[in-house]
């Protein structure tokens, strides 16, 4: 599972990382019960401060998206928080809106964007 942060951006690392975790939960790459890397491993991997990663895990735990099991690690919560699915989809919509705006600025047509999405879409294996 690859996370990426851009430390020299104007967006705090905490926000970058929590948005990526949220997006992965919304997109289904992270499923309930999946284990996240330990704070130390994630920090070493991203080459960022451990406090920063810990803060993200704590916040998402408070939101109900993650679950910290004492002495064991951090997991995606078994059940999404009340209204969780809706808020995750809402979040995904915001992301889409942002991407569509960027596409428009690049002069992409709706068809171009749909095609780009279709190329990326992998149907779920049954």
């Amino acid at each position, binding site marked *: 599972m690859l996370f990426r942060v851009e430390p020299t951006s*104007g967006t705090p690392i905490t*926000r970058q990382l929590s948005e990526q975790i949220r997006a992965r939960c919304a997109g289904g790459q992270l499923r309930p019960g999946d284990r996240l890397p330990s704070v*130390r491993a994630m920090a*070493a991997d991203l080459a960022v401060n451990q406090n920063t990663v810990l803060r993200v895990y704590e916040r998402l735990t408070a939101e109900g998206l993650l679950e910290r099991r004492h002495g064991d690690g951090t997991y995606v919560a078994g059940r999404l928080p009340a209204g969780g699915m809706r808020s995750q989809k809402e979040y995904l919509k915001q992301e889409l809106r942002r991407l569509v705006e960027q596409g428009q600025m690049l002069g992409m047509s709706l068809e171009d964007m749909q095609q780009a999405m279709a190329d990326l879409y992998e149907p779920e294996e049954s």
Partner: protein
Amino acid sequence: MTDDVIVAAGVEKRFGRTEVLRGVDLTVPRGSVVGLLGTNGAGKTTLIKCMVGLLRVAGGQCRILGDDAWSLSPETKARIGYVPQVISFFPWMRVRDLVRYTASFYPNWNEELCGRLIRDWEIPADQRAGTLSVGQTQKVAIVLAVAHEPDVLILDEPAAALDPLARRQFLQLIIDIAGPGQRTILFSTHLTADLERVADRVAVLKSGQVTWSGLLEDLKEQTHLNLEESFLEMHHA
């Protein structure tokens, strides 16, 4: 006992007629990694020397681990690691002897960590300290400052002389030993990109006063600027 590891309150320091620190207020909570930013001559080194008790404040107070910085107990001193900006070793000592000599002062010297860093950082242990390059000297000083696993680590421009590879290794070391929430680290730098990775707090020293301090993420949420842009903005007026 307070959870602030370093407390500077109204710290003043002057050299002759030059006022360098003009009422510095700064608290460093336990477990945080603080980047101290400032232009050349802003007073970073002077403030750090006051914090570790190498300079006596002219006004105000500096406390570290509960002790007054000017009268640190031996027990407190053993819990502090410090890398000065200008490093001086006995030039005739070989690096391995320098390590053994320094280790003899500390009861909790971590041989394993020390040996690993010397290997990883390719420090020539047989060479005499006087023949090391500036970067190699800085590496040795960092190893000597962390090997006794101090609770507080204070570094004055630690990465300035390091090449990009060594700097990355140094940042990894800081990340590795820093936490979460355990060891407290304060380092001065003007390399904002390094700081954005490893620091969770920032303090900006400007003409002898701390003009901004707090969580790096709060600064970014407020300004939507990266640290370098914020820093330039703060010094624009």
